[in-house]
């Protein structure tokens, strides 16, 4: 989609639910955020940039992402811009998973020394980066983990890989109150 400043201002003043990310300043370019409704229960937040690309967040599957992008293109078409839907790519997948046991982070870090890093002052989770599948796992002491990766397959592989490591360092039930 062709981007120029006046185009975004037009979007902003159209009836759709657009709003700017920060204070709208006509001189500098600020991307706009759109709240796109996909289907009845699902919706996505979209950030539209001045350049040709826009980002979609908070969707639940890869198909939904494509659908949301198409919806955005349709919205912009209705506003009168010449829109072409191209170069769709899933960039990041975030998954949350909860283990039935607590995890002792200190043991976990010591056992997986160079790959895992834990800085309690900076962040309460231990970070475990799996290089060859490019996934990052954040392990919390309550047992919930967050996995981020480039696609859903990588994330699933990461969870499978990390489970045995977590199982070794679990907290025995007796210690939990």
């Amino acid at each position, binding site marked *: 989609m062709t981007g120029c400043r006046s185009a975004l201002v037009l979007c902003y003043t159209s009836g759709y639910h657009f709003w700017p990310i920060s204070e709208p300043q006509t001189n500098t370019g600020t991307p706009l955020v759109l709240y796109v409704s996909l289907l009845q229960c699902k919706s996505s937040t979209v950030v539209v940039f001045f350049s040709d690309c826009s980002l979609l967040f908070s969707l639940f599957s890869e198909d939904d992402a494509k659908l949301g992008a198409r919806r955005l293109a349709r919205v912009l078409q209705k506003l009168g811009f010449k829109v072409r839907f191209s170069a769709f790519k899933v960039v990041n997948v975030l998954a949350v998973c909860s283990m039935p046991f*607590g995890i*002792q*982070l*200190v043991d976990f*870090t*010591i056992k997986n*020394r*160079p790959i895992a*890093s*834990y*800085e*309690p*002052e*900076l962040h*309460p989770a231990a970070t475990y980066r799996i290089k060859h599948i490019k996934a990052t796992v954040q392990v*919390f*002491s*309550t047992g919930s983990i967050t996995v981020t990766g480039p696609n859903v397959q990588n994330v699933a592989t990461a969870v499978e890989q990390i489970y045995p490591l977590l199982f070794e360092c679990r*907290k025995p039930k007796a*210690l*939990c109150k």
Partner: protein
Amino acid sequence: YISSTKPLKIRFINGLSLPRVQCPNHPDTILVEDYRAGDMICPECGLVVGDRVIDVGSEWRTFSNEKALKDPSRVGDAQNPLLNGGDLTTMISKGTGAASFDEFGNSKYQNRRTMSSSDRAMLNAFKEISTMADRINLPRNIIDRTNNLFKQVYEQKSLKGRANDAIASACLYIACRQEGVPRTFKEICAVSRISKKEIGRCFKLILKALETSVDLITTGDFMSRFCSNLGLPKQVQMAATFIARKAVELDLVPGRSPISVAAAAIYMASQASAEKKTQKEIGDIAGVADVTIRQSYRLIYPRAAELFPPDFKFDTPVDKLPQL
């Protein structure tokens, strides 16, 4: 001692091409230096092995209370060539006599030639590191380690875009950790102009760039510093250390930063002794908010009786400890 001299026996050791002075009869003994006579003497047989050894001490005594107008020392400072890349340039300082100014009143020799422009940033950083370390009274070995780390990071150029001060602060943090006396990020923040976030980011980047890792912090690392800053006696400090360690072992405080746990332990120990400290005071010293201390204290309070060391003298018994 026998004062007959033999010609110097210089031996080349396999691999090393440095000449080494040795006693011919006792090659393995370490020679004793007699600085007054300028001799190197073998302690086993008393043979004078090397003579006319140049004394590298200072030429004459200089006192600090004398006017520093003329410094009679003819050599410069002890340079650190390992860190600075072997800089042997000479600088010409501002002249004092009339002859050093030309007709317009400008000094003839313009300015000190730029000494080592490539290492200027590094020297600045070393100065900054030294200032920061001086503020928290860090010993020389940590400063040296920090300088070494900074040099390694600087030469790698992988963190080139970051502010040098940020890298210096992060190097200081890593050096303290590596020496076994970790300082909290907040303590380093207090002596640096960089935000904690930025220091944390640089810290992670440096660990990745140098491919090292550091040990995890424990509650005991900070006890002596916090307690002595608060003026608590040794008994209370030992009790607090014990409480914190026990609390972590029993896993009463999952997911809490060791510093918050340490602060809560100090609070509990001080409240049970004669020297009671408020949460605010402890929070100021440790750099934790007093709500955080309250949170951690609530977690360890239920099992307070088990956490105290067995030989602790209670000024306030366990059941009278404040409940927050």
